């Protein structure tokens, strides 16, 4: 891919050597990992993603390499004229090593599918790490903004501003019947996906998750959970996202998602209060066992550490653990992921070596 001349960029860095930026920015977390709102006791983050395509170009699954490269240049030009995207990093995904690519997934700036892309693709990352644009994922553009807690409205304001600015130089594919045209019809219309990451340890402990999910309107929203061997979910973390993008306004979807997330939060809070009325000693035992393991383990997988960190997070919410903040736990949940450990220790590690180094890294951060 040919580079834009630096004088055209106005504050946008060239994508030639991003790897040096990665090291510096390892602890330069996005707002979702450094700020909180009144729902942060359950809701870790809220994300809005918009899918857009550009007129005159086939969608990425059908476009030629030439077309995709031309499209990237067009997008770069449009980004350089957007004031919200000043000081943005442009990253040529194809030039990155495997671990550098995975790093962006762990950071929630790119999707797992995107980093496996074999076609010309570009990742645009905002200076604050809360905005990113994937160019040539399933659609030409996937704009996304992640905010802390339940601040979906803030995410919407930011993403709309970026969209408006890009639109001055890009013509989006749109029809009055179907709305914004996307490669997959499940995104058609608004092209908007709201997704909320929510921590529900007490509903999980009390085995109420299945009934909570059953009562949700799953024709409108999707609920995703991660499970290890057995029935326990990994990290007690769930994602809810809107399913419908056609025949509703962005505003009504956002209001609906906020409403649903608030209801789930109330149920989790009620379950936490119930704990004190029932078998609190059992919960305390799990929390302090988790603490003991994290303080002393010599080898630990990414999945086990997620489960234990989840219990510590609950311990903080229940005021049983006072030496750490929930933000520090959220950050650790990101830092102990494989690509982050590779970057922290700056060497290529085997899976077993990583598990040993992870235990060491956690011990250093858990001097309570």
């Amino acid at each position, binding site marked *: 891919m040919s580079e834009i001349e630096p004088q055209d960029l106005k504050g946008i860095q060239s994508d030639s050597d991003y790897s040096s930026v990665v090291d510096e920015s390892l602890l330069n977390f996005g707002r979702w990992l450094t700020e909180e709102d009144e729902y942060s006791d359950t809701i870790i983050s809220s994300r809005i993603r918009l899918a857009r395509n550009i007129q005159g*170009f086939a969608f990425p699954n059908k476009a030629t390499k030439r077309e995709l490269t031309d499209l990237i240049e067009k997008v770069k030009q449009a980004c350089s004229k957007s004031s919200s995207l000043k000081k943005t990093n442009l990253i040529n995904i194809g030039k990155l090593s495997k671990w550098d690519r995975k790093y962006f997934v762990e950071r929630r700036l790119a999707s797992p599918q995107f980093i496996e892309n074999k076609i010309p693709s570009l990742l645009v990352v905002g200076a604050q790490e809360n905005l990113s644009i994937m160019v040539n994922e*399933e659609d030409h553009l996937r704009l996304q903004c992640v905010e802390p807690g339940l601040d979906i409205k803030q995410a919407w304001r930011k993403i709309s501003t970026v969209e408006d600015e890009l639109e001055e130089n890009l013509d989006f594919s749109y*029809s009055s019947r*179907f709305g914004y045209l996307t490669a997959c019809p499940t995104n058609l219309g608004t092209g908007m996906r709201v997704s909320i990451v929510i921590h529900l340890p007490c509903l999980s402990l009390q085995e109420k998750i299945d009934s909570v999910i059953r009562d949700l309107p799953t024709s409108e929203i999707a609920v995703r959970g991660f499970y290890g061997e057995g029935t326990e979910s990994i990290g007690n973390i769930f994602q809810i996202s809107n399913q419908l993008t*056609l025949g*509703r306004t962005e505003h009504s979807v956002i209001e609906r998602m906020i409403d649903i997330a608030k209801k789930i939060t109330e149920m989790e809070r009620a379950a936490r209060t119930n704990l004190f009325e029932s078998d609190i000693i059992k919960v305390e035992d799990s929390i302090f066992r988790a603490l003991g393991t994290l303080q002393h383990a010599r080898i630990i997988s990414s999945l086990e550490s997620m489960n234990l960190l989840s219990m510590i997070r609950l311990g903080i919410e229940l005021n049983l653990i006072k030496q750490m903040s929930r933000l520090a736990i959220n950050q650790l949940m990101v830092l102990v992921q494989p690509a982050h450990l590779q970057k922290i220790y700056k060497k290529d590690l085997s899976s077993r070596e990583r598990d040993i180094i992870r235990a060491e890294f956690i011990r250093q951060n858990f001097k309570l």
Partner: protein
Amino acid sequence: MLCQICKVDKASVKITQVIDDKKIELNLCKSCAEKKGIDNPMTGLPQFVGNFMAELFGKEILQRSAKRSGIRCHHCGTSWENFKNTGLFGCDICYQVFEDDLKVILRRIHGSNQHIGSRPNSQRTRLDEAELERMKADLRKAIEQENFELAAELRDLVRNAERQFNKSDNDGILR
């Protein structure tokens, strides 16, 4: 259970998605989950495509449309068969070519086949079908409420709008 990707190792991670009252599960081994970058519940999750597509769109609808399987998009060459396999269209013109079948499928996926959300700046001053429908609904309401002054005003607006709408040969797709 074996990993659904490599079909060699034992699955140790299960990702579930509940949608439309259906629970879809993906069982992966540790190494495949890690390779796909989906071993962390905080980050992006995989898209459920493939067989899931048929479930989502409804098998009978996809089958019923089999008679159209000879049709291809004249712009990008995507056939209905391609779409059935990947769940993806190849370009914006596909939406014109397959519009009739899509209207049925979209109603099934989204419960609607008419966009009412925001539109590009260039389209914001132009009238679209959704807006016309809204004006007609307002007119009906005004008549029901016997607010004839407002109804007369709205009727004129709707008439003008319809005239304007029929004049422009708007097939919906922007070029």
